[in-house]
């Protein structure tokens, strides 16, 4: 699992989202594993999310778990269904009510992927 975690962390640090895709059955999964959860084939491929999706849920955190986060309060956290399929957690900027179309902020925030609302038009 360690090399999978490293792959995810490297994408995350750039503000991007790496997910897995199974070449055998086409299943996609956000939570990295050494196998496809749908067909159990080993070693799914890696893909990089285009960075667009639909908001499932959103919270604004006013109570932080660590000192690092305490200085950033309040900050948004969201669950987004990527257009490619997987559901991911990420930081959030702006009004991301459920159902809102969202897009990744280039470069991320705090070395983490961060969604913002897709601009009108």
């Amino acid at each position, binding site marked *: 699992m360690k090399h999978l975690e490293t792959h*995810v962390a490297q994408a995350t640090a750039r503000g991007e989202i790496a997910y897995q895709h199974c070449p055998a059955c086409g299943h996609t999964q956000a939570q990295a594993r050494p196998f496809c959860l749908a067909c159990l084939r080993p070693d799914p491929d890696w893909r990089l999310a285009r960075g667009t999706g639909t908001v499932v849920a959103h919270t604004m955190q006013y109570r932080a778990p660590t000192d690092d986060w305490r200085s950033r309060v*309040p900050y948004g*956290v969201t669950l987004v269904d990527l257009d490619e399929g997987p559901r991911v957690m990420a930081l959030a900027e702006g009004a991301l009510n459920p159902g809102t179309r969202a897009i990744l902020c280039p470069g991320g925030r705090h070395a*983490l992927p961060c969604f913002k609302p897709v601009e009108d038009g």
Partner: protein
Amino acid sequence: MTAAYIAGVGLTPFGRHDGADTLDLMTRAAQAALDDAGLERAQIDGLVTGYSTAMPHLMLATLFAEHFGLRPSYANGLQLGGATGAAMVMLAKLLIASGQYSRVLVVAGENRLTTEGGRDQAIRTLAQVGHAFHEVPFGATIPGYYALLASQYLGRHPGTERDLAEIAVFMRRQAQAMPGAHLTAPLTVEDALASRLVAAPLRLADCCPISDGAAALVISAAPGPHGAVRIAGAGQAHRHQHVSMATDWHNFGAADAADRAFAEAGLAREDVEVLGIYDSFTITLAMLLEETGFAPRGQAGRQIAAGAHEAGGVPLNTHGGLLSYGHPGVAGGMAHLIDVTRQMQRRAGPRQMPGPGRVGYVHADGGVLSAHVGLVLATEGAAA
């Protein structure tokens, strides 16, 4: 299969217990449960404990047995987050059903509030139920994970913020009548809606407190001295650990666990006359009541505000729940079961429910609606 009864219960006040550690608090509840059952230590042949965030230990059951002075022929320390207490009772029921054990002590407690580090330490520890590198790095907390559920619920059922506040108010009112409750200050819907944001849309009044306290039950092949309450059915469901992996937000597993418990009991939802439903947050209670089939979707708070669980209705969390009786971890979820038992045995004193209380249903969840345990209780007067 041997029937399993709740033969004795013990519950400490929840709140601050300055100077008491995990073993002290577990001892108080365990002694109270033994006294209630009219049993001595030597008569206990099985021991089931949970875990303590204030005293992490690889062998809490054996540690407690040594401390308390038990020599059980079976011991187990179980971990399923908030579902642990109900799962411990289910395990005790299975041990009794096996015919190999006669009296199982189920006990949990900790000084989660007054332990070194207190609330901050607890918030950091509890956040670890999130995924280590897909969730925790984003700074979400347990209230944050449940706030995600709440945002979706409020989006799907517009105008229900006030209904969630009604849940907090109802739990507070019940706690005011319950000796030993952690939070008893008067709370109105307006107070709840004006309380500070913790993880929007959840406010302080939507969140249970972090408490010290302990709870214990003796599960036995024979009824205790206070009236026979049998564990007629028990069911579990585990469909995900992490909220980002829960893709069916109409079925987190609560309904599955309840279905399994009612099927074993040979009873139906309609038979239930008293409820104890996990309420770590107002949204938790709303979603569990709805998914287990005791409120229509989007209506839990409205149903509570309309008095469905007051005089003449089906009592719910008569002790004030986690939201106001308090939440010291594993023991928090056991308090619901203990008060439902007392109501069914008609010994809740001035708080005694008016109805007969022949069938009770208790439900707990751990993680983020991740682990579910449902327990169906029945008195001798129950239909099945």
